[in-house]
């Protein structure tokens, strides 16, 4: 029914997920620790570190939203950047052209992207396999064509530069935050919003609804046989993923101080797919790890050479032929092996 996903990885993971996950996370609250460490960046790191951290956090949300389709539901979307772009443009246009405050423009971006995901998803989920991937690609190119050509609204090929930052003066009144720059304040807000979004997505995946999505991924025929409306569930996942991608887009537009048609070009969808797979699609924390790895690598490598695409392609080749489970998948495999050695 759906495009074939590396199911052997996902199944192996699903078998082991239960008690191990609970036992580990019950002892050490890893998620909280990572969040707190990330929150210290404006104080301990340089301005440049804050810049990188912002990018990682936003990409992490984008990649996790894609993985809700890819890893959880088993849908290969080749046009996920469309919803990211719709979110970025909705937020950018509302804030720049109409002077709407961020607190309204941000949820509006998520709703706008979700609405577009509802419309395009209604058609996409009726198709299977490669055709689903192609139609998502087609919709993303429609968004690109609109962004590129509709000068009056989107700014056309000039884009929408200089979107006003939200001032966030209230953060200054928090003790210890008095001397934070506007970029630092926006980073902290981004981190908080992304953390909340990730928590919500996590809850969705672990809910009965999320379990049904996983069943659909593994065996859509059986799911349909059990009385599940497969298309409706796929559409719901598509809309949720689109909405969160829109939120990531809104944050990205503000972070990079502008929204441009380039953001929506189809190759960006491929980049976010690479990010997700690099981290590992069988794991909730795979995509954020992939985002961190790719953003960091990009910075390191572009210092030495301008041929970043070449390196990215080589990484992708190594991943496809050497380690299809991604970074987290590879570490998991290593960990299992060590455990087995210890028991033996």
């Amino acid at each position, binding site marked *: 029914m759906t495009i074939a996903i590396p199911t052997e990885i996902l199944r192996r993971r699903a078998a082991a997920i239960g008690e191990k996950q609970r036992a580990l996370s019950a002892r050490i609250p890893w998620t909280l620790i990572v969040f707190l460490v990330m929150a210290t960046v404006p104080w301990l790191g340089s301005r440049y570190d804050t810049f990188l951290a912002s990018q990682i956090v936003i990409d992490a949300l984008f990649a996790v939203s894609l993985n809700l389709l890819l890893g959880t539901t088993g849908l290969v979307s080749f046009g996920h950047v469309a919803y990211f772009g719709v979110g970025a443009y909705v937020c950018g246009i509302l804030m720049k052209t109409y002077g709407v405050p961020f607190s309204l423009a941000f949820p509006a971006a998520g709703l706008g992207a979700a609405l577009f995901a509802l419309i395009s998803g209604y058609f996409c989920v009726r198709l299977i396999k490669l055709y689903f991937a192609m139609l998502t690609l087609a919709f993303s190119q429609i968004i690109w064509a609109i962004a590129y050509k509709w000068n009056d609204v989107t700014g056309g090929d000039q884009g929408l530069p200089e979107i006003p930052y939200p001032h966030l003066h209230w953060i200054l009144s928090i003790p210890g935050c008095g001397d934070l720059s506007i970029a630092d304040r926006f980073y902290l807000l981004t981190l908080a919003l992304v953390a909340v979004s990730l928590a919500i997505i996590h809850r969705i995946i672990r809910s009965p609804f999320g379990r049904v999505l996983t069943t659909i991924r593994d065996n859509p025929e059986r799911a349909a046989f059990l009385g599940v409306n497969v298309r409706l569930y796929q559409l719901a996942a598509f809309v949720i993923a689109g909405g969160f991608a829109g939120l990531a887009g809104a944050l990205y537009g503000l972070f990079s101080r502008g929204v441009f048609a380039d953001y929506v070009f189809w190759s960006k969808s491929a980049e976010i797919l*690479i990010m997700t797979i690099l981290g590992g699609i069988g794991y909730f924390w795979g995509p954020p790890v992939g985002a961190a790895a790719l953003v960091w690598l990009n910075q390191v490598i572009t210092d030495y050479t301008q041929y970043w695409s070449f390196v990215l392609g080589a990484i992708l080749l190594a991943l496809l032929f050497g380690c299809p489970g991604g970074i987290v998948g590879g570490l998991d495999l290593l960990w299992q092996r060590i455990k087995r050695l210890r028991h033996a």
Partner: protein
Amino acid sequence: MSSSFLFSQFMGGLTTAMFLFLIASGLSLVFGVMRVINFAHGSFYMFGAYLAWQAVQWLHPTGGGFWLATLFAAVCVGLLGAVTERVFFRSLYGREELYQLLFTYALVLILGDAAKLLWGTDQLSVSTPPALAGSIQIFGTTQPLYTLFIIAIGPAIAFALWLLLNRTGAGRMVRAAQMDREMLDALGANVALIYTAMFSVSAFLAGLSGALVTPIQSIVPGMDVLIIVQAFIVVVIGGMGSLWGTFWGSVIYGQVLSFGILIFPGFSLFSVFALMAVILIVRPWGLFGRPL
């Protein structure tokens, strides 16, 4: 709106169409036999263009030698395709489609930067071969001979491919591989060789179209990712894996693009993407294709 204006729009659309057909035919061929969407097809096209430019520089720096350069570029890209299939693609056939898609995308990234490394980022151009440099008057419009040549070569390639697939022993093997690879394998046919050959022919066509486009368009980095989406649209409209579907798909694409400008000025791109979306929604397997 005068009739000569409409005629020149029509001819413009037809030129676009036949160019796209040259590119998309190879994409459709590979999809039909291997069920793989090859994103790197655009990169093969770009390499064809760069190699043709390079060969022209070697042969006659002042211009000329175009036909030899075109042949050279197409053959080189055909070989590149064969090597790619043998070395990498082979081990991905049993794997999920996602991995195959991403593999071809990895090639796009690598070949794109390789072209920048080899030929730099400046715009390059090749002059029109002298024999076709002129133009003639038709219905009060001026038509360059070179575009008429392109319009003629599209159907010629289509016919040649049709002959190859339907009237030769090799073509029969290809059609059999398309229907049931395992059965053909069990019957003792060399399916691996058929796949390599098909991939190579497809790359050859991409290289050929890349070389032929050089007198009309300048060669720039990024031409690979721009063309591949257009070629996809053509293949999707016509029906993936169907030769005549791809042909008529390109004709429709060209005309929609050409006349779309009249209906939505500045939005012609939008009209072709919308056309693709509508066709995928109504008839996902395309106008001439069969359901997967």
